[in-house]
């Protein structure tokens, strides 16, 4: 399939016709050459399942009023990033994971460092940016929206976990400029859902997910945080197959694939 076909005509979005044009070779890909930034609590690179898989580890530090990023050797402050990396690598084993630590780093872990981490990932032009976290503070909504626009224009595909709380969580509610994900009980990573018209458009496996954990262990976890890296990993496979794919095309592709799967 040509990616252009997927996006050139409105009528071609009528599934399953469009999906029938979508070859399935991407499922055999491994994410090779695709960079994924995991903006989170860091990654435990000593975990045997992750050794050699983490291409870089950066960490937010405060310098006066500025937040800067330097190489990090402090590992994972909470286990969250390690769990997300495990989910990605289980599906896209050759993806290039880059850890950007903004939680529990050097005494900071607030919305400012979260914003700075996203901006850092965009500047690095990582193809996929995994945000399995968010903020409910309204003062961060506008700057996050600006950053998402920058990401879109830079060709970075931002994937964000919804929270399942009554309050809106940013940036996951900005569905027009990112891919927001909530958990589903489905276990097959290729059977994700697309709910056009919903604020949180995508669902992916996020219930009882077995993944890496700090202390060189594994855990069975449930949460939107773990559904999000599923979609990041699927996108890594798609970008491995179609390296020129834009953020717009990526979302269209996910839509088509999910519709095809639901009519199988």
């Amino acid at each position, binding site marked *: 399939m040509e990616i252009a076909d997927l996006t050139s005509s409105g009528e071609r979005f009528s599934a399953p016709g469009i999906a029938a044009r979508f070859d399935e070779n991407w499922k055999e890909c491994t994410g090779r050459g695709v960079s994924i930034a995991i903006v989170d609590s860091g990654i435990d690179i000593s975990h045997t399942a992750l050794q050699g898989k983490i291409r870089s580890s950066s960490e937010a530090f405060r310098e006066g009023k500025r937040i800067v990023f330097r190489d990090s050797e402090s590992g994972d*402050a909470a286990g969250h990033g390690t769990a997300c990396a495990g989910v990605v690598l289980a599906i896209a084993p050759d993806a290039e994971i880059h850890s950007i630590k903004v939680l529990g780093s050097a005494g900071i872990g607030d919305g400012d460092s979260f914003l700075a981490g996203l901006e850092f990932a965009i500047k690095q032009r990582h193809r996929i940016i995994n945000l399995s976290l968010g903020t409910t503070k309204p003062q961060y909504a506008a700057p996050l929206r600006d950053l998402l626009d920058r990401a879109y224009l830079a060709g970075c595909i931002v994937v964000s976990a919804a929270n399942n709380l009554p309050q809106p969580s940013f940036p996951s509610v900005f569905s027009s400029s990112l891919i927001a994900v909530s958990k*589903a009980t489905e276990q097959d990573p290729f059977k994700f859902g697309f709910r056009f018209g919903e604020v949180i458009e995508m669902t992916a496996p996020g219930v009882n997910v077995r993944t890496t954990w700090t202390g060189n262990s594994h855990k069975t976890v449930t949460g939107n945080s773990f559904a999000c890296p599923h979609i990041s990993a699927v996108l890594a496979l798609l970008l491995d197959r179609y390296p020129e794919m834009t953020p717009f095309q990526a979302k269209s592709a996910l839509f088509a694939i999910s519709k095809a799967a639901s009519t199988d």
Partner: protein
Amino acid sequence: MIETVEVAEVLTTPFNESIVNLLDLSSRAIKAEGASVLLPEGEEGDLVFKWACGSVSDSLIGVTVPSGKGIAGFVYTTGQPMAVSDAERETNFYSEVDRNTGFSTHTILATPLHFDGDVTGVLEYVNREGDPPYEPFTSEEMDLAALYADAVASLVHAYTSADLLGEFSRRMLEGADGEGSRDVESFLADLEGSEEHKDRIRLAELVRRASSLGEKERELCENILESFVRYRNGGH
């Protein structure tokens, strides 16, 4: 003066009771063996078990979770809810808590408490009732826990505000100095020791409990008390 001295207790007790009641109610709905609320304490971001229900609630209250440790630390740091179905393998924190409390943690569901955009604490449910193998907490139960967390967060905020108000009142009294202050302290000491004062506090507590039962109960309570006062005053 009575109100000032008792303000902390009078203000916080209803919230304390409501939080524990809600924990009990919600843990039944979520089919958990116990529930707890952890709040941050100190500058390091440690979490402390502040309220709990379940078999080891008494020994859990006051236990500190070091910053970033355990599922609670994880949820507090990220603001994202999560459930773990094999928590007994947790190496860094729960094994230590379990040793101290004699409890055996095997499943955990934790969700952040949000208030006014901030993560203010963590609501945690532990274990299934019955025998192993234990069912993991479901996706639906996680969503339900988030709704309970919203109510708990509001109560915790109200408790914290009441506690601050009580502390403020206490400091105001402590801050007063001179002869007048000693007279006040002496008066209050006598007052607190008096049986009449204790009776009044008990009565106030009884009225508070009765009035929390519902609108009709409040009306009935009010009518009874008014009738009694009218009767004692010789009215009709």
